[in-house]
């Protein structure tokens, strides 16, 4: 299963070897907390993205476990120390097990 909403990612395309770069990510999701009641008074079931992972050339280097306090359309920024050229893979997973991925290339001069 895939999460249909398109994530957005900001990664520098190039970096110097040893440079620490900032990566910013954003994905649309209501992050339904399980605390809210609908118009009929029924509790809306919890449904959040609970895991975000960033990997470089297949190797995970940063993971965030999100709980219900994380805002809708979760934003995450973090850092990476560039050593070699390669590709980032970013993965979001929700409560239902659905997944969304995004990739970005990095060239190290």
């Amino acid at each position, binding site marked *: *299963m895939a*999460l*249909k*909403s*398109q994530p*957005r990612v900001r990664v520098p395309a190039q970096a110097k070897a040893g440079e*620490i*770069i900032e990566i910013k990510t*954003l994905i*649309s*999701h*209501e992050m*339904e*907390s399980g*605390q*809210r*009641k609908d118009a009929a008074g029924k509790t*809306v079931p919890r*449904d959040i993205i609970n895991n975000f992972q960033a990997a*470089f050339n297949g*190797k*995970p*280097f*940063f*993971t*965030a*476990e*999100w*709980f*219900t*306090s*994380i*805002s*809708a*359309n*979760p*934003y*995450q*920024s*973090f*850092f*990476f*120390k560039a050593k070699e050229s390669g590709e980032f893979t970013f993965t979001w997973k*929700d409560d*239902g097990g*659905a997944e969304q991925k995004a990739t970005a290339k990095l060239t190290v001069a």
Partner: protein
Amino acid sequence: MPPRLDATLVPTRGLPTRGLSAHGLPTRRGALKLAGLAAFAAVLAPRMALATEAQVADEMKKLFAGKTMGAGKIKLDMPEIAENGLVVPINIDVDSPMTEADFVKSVHVFADGNPLPQVVTYHFTPESGKASASTRMRLAQTQNVIAVAEMSSGQLYSAKVQVKVTIGGCGG
């Protein structure tokens, strides 16, 4: 797949939650806001069970059983006053060389005034280069946010900030 996943991209701040609490539960505050009294509608306690300092302490005990907590090293940066309780920026920064021998393994964030004590847990590696991360969180009311960094040595460091949630108005 739940239909919610088909949601089109909406602005980060902008879910149609006006009149709802930070956790989507209608509150009296929300009702006042919808009624147009927001300039002077107080922050009224949402009618939901909220985490307390004791619950946060319990959760931390489970994770860090009996280990001592150092001060310093970790910086938790949040606005003193939330501009929007639904979307409050939070930035964590831990001082560490981030080498194989000495790095920050994880950072746990807790809040004592939201329905659940946990907010986010980060796992870093030496490849991170810098143990720093930013996200945005909900705040149901004025409360403390606590962050605990766990170093590769097992050493723990914590930081705490209070963030005020106010309805504001009147500024001039």
